[in-house]
């Protein structure tokens, strides 16, 4: 697949992050309808669909190098953003193999993997990495196998062990999260780590999703989109660093909402891992400034309606109470009452 990678931009401080026109058009917009409510919106993760982001097993985009640089900054500051419990060693190697094979297959111009028995050779051209190592021997890599490979793939990842009819978050690489903490959640059960989400428990969403995931089959990964809002294009919106980004939420005004407020979409993928029987949960985050998103008319109109109609408890949980009205006012001029097609496609090929 085509992939033109930009030089690194920043996700903190001066926030130089911008989306190119191509990046805007390939954005995985999360709202197929004018109203949003929690649901078990899981579908097979097969190539194709309404956004280019669904074309690869693990989607990379123009922000690859910048994303990886920001991850390295966050890890240097707080190594506990990557943790894997000791019984997950096989799942670490499963992850490394899956990610290397996927990247080499989907982006052969940037990545290559050569296997001679257990002697592997990995080349990552955008990050200037050329690594010979022995599969199964962690001491032949500069980091543990899970950390090694997730330092080279956009998006957060967590590892779920399956036992006693439950999933446990027993590992992860989490540096671009929507205000949750791996260090707090590691070892928790599926029910426990979803504890703070409103409404969905009562709707039975989590019970059904858990039963579905316990039966997730090898070779049949699934995906869903999730979303929230973030003040400034910041990847590290962690509870640990709330003092750094929390005050920025208060800086959103009616005047700067279009430039500063970002829709943050997670393309979540769930893949059964072969040796360990664990589940790899990929949380691939995408950021888009409201003014960038509004260049796609359908999305501007739909976003206006979704935010306007949103259940207050969900609005509170997603942390937008302070600036919700600014968003509605900013997008209202785009919404001429037109009827929109169902689905998330941009329905325009240029901006």
């Amino acid at each position: 697949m085509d992939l033109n990678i930009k030089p690194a931009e920043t996700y903190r401080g001066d926030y130089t992050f911008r989306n190119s026109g191509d990046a805007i058009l390939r954005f995985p917009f999360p709202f197929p309808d004018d109203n949003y409510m929690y649901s078990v919106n899981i579908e097979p993760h097969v190539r194709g669909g309404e956004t280019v982001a669904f074309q690869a097993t693990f989607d990379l985009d123009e922000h690859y190098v910048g994303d990886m640089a920001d991850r390295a900054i966050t890890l240097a500051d707080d190594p506990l953003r990557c943790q894997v419990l000791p019984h997950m060693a096989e799942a670490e190697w499963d992850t490394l193999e899956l990610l290397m094979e996927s990247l080499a297959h989907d982006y052969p111009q940037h990545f290559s993997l050569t296997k001679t028995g257990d002697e592997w050779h990995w080349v990552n051209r955008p990050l200037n990495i050329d690594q010979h190592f022995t599969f199964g021997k962690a001491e032949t890599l500069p980091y543990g196998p899970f950390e090694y490979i997730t330092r080279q793939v956009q998006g957060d990842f967590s590892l779920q062990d399956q036992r006693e009819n439950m999933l446990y978050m027993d590992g992860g690489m989490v540096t671009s999260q929507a205000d949750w903490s791996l260090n707090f959640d590691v070892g928790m059960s599926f029910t426990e780590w979803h504890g703070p989400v409103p409404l969905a428990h009562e709707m039975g969403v989590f019970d059904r999703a858990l039963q579905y995931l316990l039966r997730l089959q090898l070779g049949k990964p699934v995906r869903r989109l999730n979303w929230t809002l973030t003040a400034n294009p910041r990847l590290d919106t962690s509870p640990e660093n709330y003092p750094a980004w929390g005050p920025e939420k208060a800086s959103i005004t009616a005047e700067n909402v279009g430039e500063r407020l970002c829709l943050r979409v997670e393309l979540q993928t769930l893949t059964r891992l072969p040796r360990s029987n664990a589940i790899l949960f990929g949380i691939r985050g995408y950021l888009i400034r409201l003014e960038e998103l509004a260049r796609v008319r359908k999305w501007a109109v739909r976003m206006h309606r979704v935010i306007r109609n949103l259940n207050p408890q969900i609005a509170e949980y997603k942390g937008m109470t302070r600036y919700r009205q600014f968003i509605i006012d900013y997008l209202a001029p785009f919404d001429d009452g037109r009827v929109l097609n169902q689905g998330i496609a941009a329905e325009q090929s240029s901006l």
Partner: protein
Amino acid sequence: MMLLLTNIETLTPALKKFTFTAPDAAPLPHAGAGVHVVVEIPGPSRKWKNAYSLVSSPESTASYQIIVRRVEKSRGGSAWLHDHAKQGDLLEVGMPQNLFAPPRRAPRHLLLSAGIGLTPFLSYMHVPGLAFELHHCCKVEDAGAFRALLPQAGNITLHTSRATLDLHALLSRQKLDTHISICGPEAFMDFVLATAAQLGWPAAKIHKESFGGATGGKPFVAHLRRSNLTLNVGEEESLLDAMEAAGLNPPCLCRGGACGECKVALLEGVADHHDHFLSPAERAANNAIMICVSRAQTPELVLDF
């Protein structure tokens, strides 16, 4: 995926080992410890789908191996594999699925098997660093074959009589962090579970796998309300078999009453539950049935399908 049967090895008159590879010798998907595959077996009048544990190493992507016991009163599948399958046959083999992964958090594993129930543990032995003690029970005449499958090691014991396996003593001397995995005939697993319960063993520290449970039984009639079909379920077939034979494609995975995938709402009649999935409360409610193994106490059932 369609796989080529490349080797058949007779272990005993009742046990054969089958080796499958991809027809183009391409690597097969990795299959971790405890996985099974569903093999489609072509019979003269109908097709069987049987689940078998892979006994090959999880790192082996060149071939998959299964061991099949010829069931005396066979539903047909194992008899066909024993009597008719030959090298060069192409058979449909499903993707590996795992309903019996070793709980890797446990520092120590006590593996208890009987008869063909040894098969999942043959793959467990390949898990790097798995600290285990295995006790396998089998008939005297099968001991040689099983001994040949097992490495000579102090942590592996073969029993040809219940008398040499003092389960009470074995369970009593385990440390608190030991996890028990069991696989074998129902009576064997019930015996282990009862002994463990008597000793106060927590349920979360035991897991079991059973395939090829009682799928046969008294014939009954199943009315499928939404499909507007009436099926006669014979004594040698399961409700799932009968539905598939009628051209239906109900969701299913393990075909052994363990995974829960094939649960169907029961509208009328009383189910005869043989699964390991529904809780006692769900069974008492009598409003769902696992169609892969469960049957009917009443002459007829009405299902929401």
